[in-house]
């Protein structure tokens, strides 16, 4: 199944019914039903008519009617990119996003960035795509085989000017290999070698991304490579209409942008839940037995081995794996422990729901177990019945029905890039392991006779420190994806964090927690700003994996110290309610803040006067608090207290 060649069947009866389903879900304001119906429609028909239909539907539906997450995207290009607009909005809907587009006339990308009064900046984008062909980066009269350095210097200079004016993420296309490379037989003339030029440019762009905050490379070369040059480009339209990309591929390009948009608003999926029979192996374990299922060196068993390797790589990248299967638990245990070709182990899965309960119940149990939202789960099954059942019962879950051909499983899951994160922190790579530690902590909790004993048994050590170069990426990432224990759910990019950090009125710090099961890494963020005699909590968030361990009390204690150090007399905060943040709603109340009775969502709705007594660190923590976060009286001594 190739994405560009999806056959267009305008207004086929199936597609018509699916269109009605989207319209009706949107009409009812049912967010996830609408998102899912849009996804099904696009799977059935992704032609220009469908894209136009979905795009108009989103544009005609006010935000108040359908609570899509807004992402404002600026499109800067050296070619006509308007043909990607419908696809971008339509695919955004299928991801739960309302994508608003600002499009500059093609070829004006330099002016838009250099002119601080340009339409681009007035639009206040969250992300800006820089879809510039290699020829447009370099002057027309550049010598053939111009050096990659010249191109990279040009990109870096423009990116720096952009960064000075906007904290939006910058998504820069890399460069595809030329379709007809110049003859390269003269191996002693590397400067004339198109291939070396492209390779050097793309390596340089990666370096630039690694060194710059919120600069990302759109791997355009990989898209062209996957679809193939001959099918990607349309030379006739390139010359006639400055539209070099064949029509059907604009949707492929838009899908790439949507991955970034999802990452920016924290909708990157976190967990992949798989079925077992005809998913991890061919056949039915309960009927065919361990010796009968297909898994091994020869087709079709080889396809399942390859699929398991693919899942293992996803896990290594930080995707949590889980199982929802209707099977006898004993058979499954045996399969994992005895089958010689099983790549994944039982322990590879952070939650295993094997039994005869409906899959929707298994999925809810997994979400509970892992403490993640259903909208962060992708569910994969070969059965039409199970897929339909989950779509119906849990519309928030992203459902992928596997194709009949097991060799196509990897493509079916990779295509939409649901797990493609903006960046991988070391926490991501260890996430599966961290969730396993949490499970152990849960089991201690059930045996500890009371909560305080539990906290003491955990042997927690908390480290609070100002954000530094090493932790900035993780800090931004936490603001982007933490939904539950987050008082204001304000999202920040790395560039924005860096900016407020340089303002002396701001306190910007991270919270890391270790316990006897291991190092959880950075799990919390505090952003606070001094306003007059008040220290205002802008952001206070905690990863769900350490909720319920009084870490938040320690964070508020730290803020009391910071307030004193700054000479503030009170701390103020507010809760901006969202669908997700119920766990944080009573934070201020239970820590003795006074409700000022003003509008509950206004800044500083909750207030703690320090004269009434500050909040103390809970005694079960071992503290490692950076001295700049301690009261002035303690200055000079690193506070490291075992209490």
């Amino acid at each position, binding site marked *: 199944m190739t994405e560009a060649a999806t056959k267009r069947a*305008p207004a086929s009866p199936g597609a018509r019914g699916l269109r009605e389903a989207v319209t009706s879900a949107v009409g009812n304001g049912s967010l996830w039903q609408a998102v899912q119906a849009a996804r099904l429609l696009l799977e059935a028909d992704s032609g220009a*008519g469908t894209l136009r239909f979905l795009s108009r539907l989103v544009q005609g539906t006010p935000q108040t009617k359908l609570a899509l997450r807004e992402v404002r995207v600026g499109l800067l290009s050296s070619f006509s990119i308007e043909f990607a607009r419908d696809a971008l909005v339509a695919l955004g809907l299928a991801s739960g996003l309302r994508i608003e587009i600002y499009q500059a006339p093609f070829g004006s990308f330099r002016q838009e960035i250099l002119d601080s009064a340009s339409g681009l900046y007035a639009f206040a984008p969250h992300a800006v795509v820089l879809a510039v062909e290699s020829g447009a980066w370099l002057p027309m009269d550049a010598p053939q085989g111009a050096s990659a350095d010249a191109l990279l210097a040009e990109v870096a200079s423009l990116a720096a000017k952009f960064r000075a004016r906007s904290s939006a993420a910058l998504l820069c296309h890399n460069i595809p290999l030329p379709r007809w490379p110049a003859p390269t037989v003269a191996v002693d003339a590397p400067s004339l070698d198109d291939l070396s030029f492209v390779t050097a440019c793309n390596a340089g762009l990666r370096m630039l991304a690694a060194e710059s905050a919120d600069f990302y490379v759109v791997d355009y070369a990989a898209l062209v490579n996957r679809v193939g040059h001959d099918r990607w480009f349309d030379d006739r339209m390139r010359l006639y209409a400055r539209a070099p990309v064949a*029509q059907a591929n604009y949707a492929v390009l838009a899908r790439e942008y949507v991955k970034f948009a999802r990452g920016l608003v924290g909708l990157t999926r976190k967990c992949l839940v798989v079925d077992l029979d005809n998913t991890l192996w061919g056949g039915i374990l309960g009927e065919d037995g361990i010796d009968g299922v297909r898994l091994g060196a020869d087709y079709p068993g080889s396809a399942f081995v390859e699929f398991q390797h693919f899942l293992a790589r996803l896990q290594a990248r930080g995707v949590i794996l889980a199982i929802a299967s209707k099977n006898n638990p004993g058979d499954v245990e045996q399969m994992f422990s005895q089958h010689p070709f099983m790549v994944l182990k039982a322990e590879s899965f952070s939650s295993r729901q094997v039994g005869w309960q409906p899959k929707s119940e298994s999925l809810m149990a997994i979400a509970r177990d892992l403490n993640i939202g259903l909208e962060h789960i992708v569910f994969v099954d070969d059965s039409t019945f199970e897929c339909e059942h989950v779509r119906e019962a849990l519309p928030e879950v992203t459902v992928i029905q596997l194709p009949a051909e097991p060799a196509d499983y990897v493509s079916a899951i990779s295509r939409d890039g649901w797990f493609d994160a903006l960046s991988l922190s070391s926490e991501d790579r260890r996430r599966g392991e961290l969730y396993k530690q949490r499970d152990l902590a849960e089991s201690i909790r059930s045996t500890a006779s009371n909560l305080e004993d539990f906290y003491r048994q955990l042997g927690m050590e908390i480290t609070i420190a100002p954000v530094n170069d090493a932790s900035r990426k993780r800090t931004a990432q936490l603001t982007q994806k933490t939904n539950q224990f987050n008082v204001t759910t304000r999202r920040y990019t790395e560039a924005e964090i860096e900016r407020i950090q340089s303002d002396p009125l701001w306190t910007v710090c991270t919270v890391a927690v270790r316990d006897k099961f291991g190092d959880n890494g950075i799990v919390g963020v505090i952003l606070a700003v001094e306003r007059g005699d008040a220290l205002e909590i802008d952001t206070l968030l905690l990863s769900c994996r350490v909720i319920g361990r009084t870490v938040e009390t320690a964070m508020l204690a730290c803020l009391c110290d910071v307030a004193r150090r700054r000479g503030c007399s009170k701390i103020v905060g507010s809760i901006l309610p969202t669908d997700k943040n119920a766990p944080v709603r009573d934070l201020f109340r239970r820590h003795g803040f006074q409700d000022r009775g003003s509008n509950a969502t206004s800044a500083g709705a909750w207030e703690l006067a320090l004269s009434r007594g500050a909040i103390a660190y809970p005694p079960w923590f071992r503290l490692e608090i950076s001295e700049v976060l301690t009261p002035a009286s303690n200055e000079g001594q690193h506070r490291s207290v075992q209490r």
Partner: protein
Amino acid sequence: MSSADDITERVRGVMADLFQVDRAAVGLESSRETIPDWDSANHLTLVLALEEDFGVTFDVGEIETMLSLQDIVAVLLGKT
């Protein structure tokens, strides 16, 4: 491939889809003057959608004459 009537109906379907109007609203004389959404960018989108749908390729000369439903059908008939 098929009769003029079949082709007309298929093109009408693609146009209705793309310009988000009722099929009944697309007549043989419908043109860039009568359909507000039929601007130059949408013209290319239409032409490329037709290429995909009919499995044909138009040259630029043809693209520039395909300015009404009738004209489009005439070009397609010449290709089948």
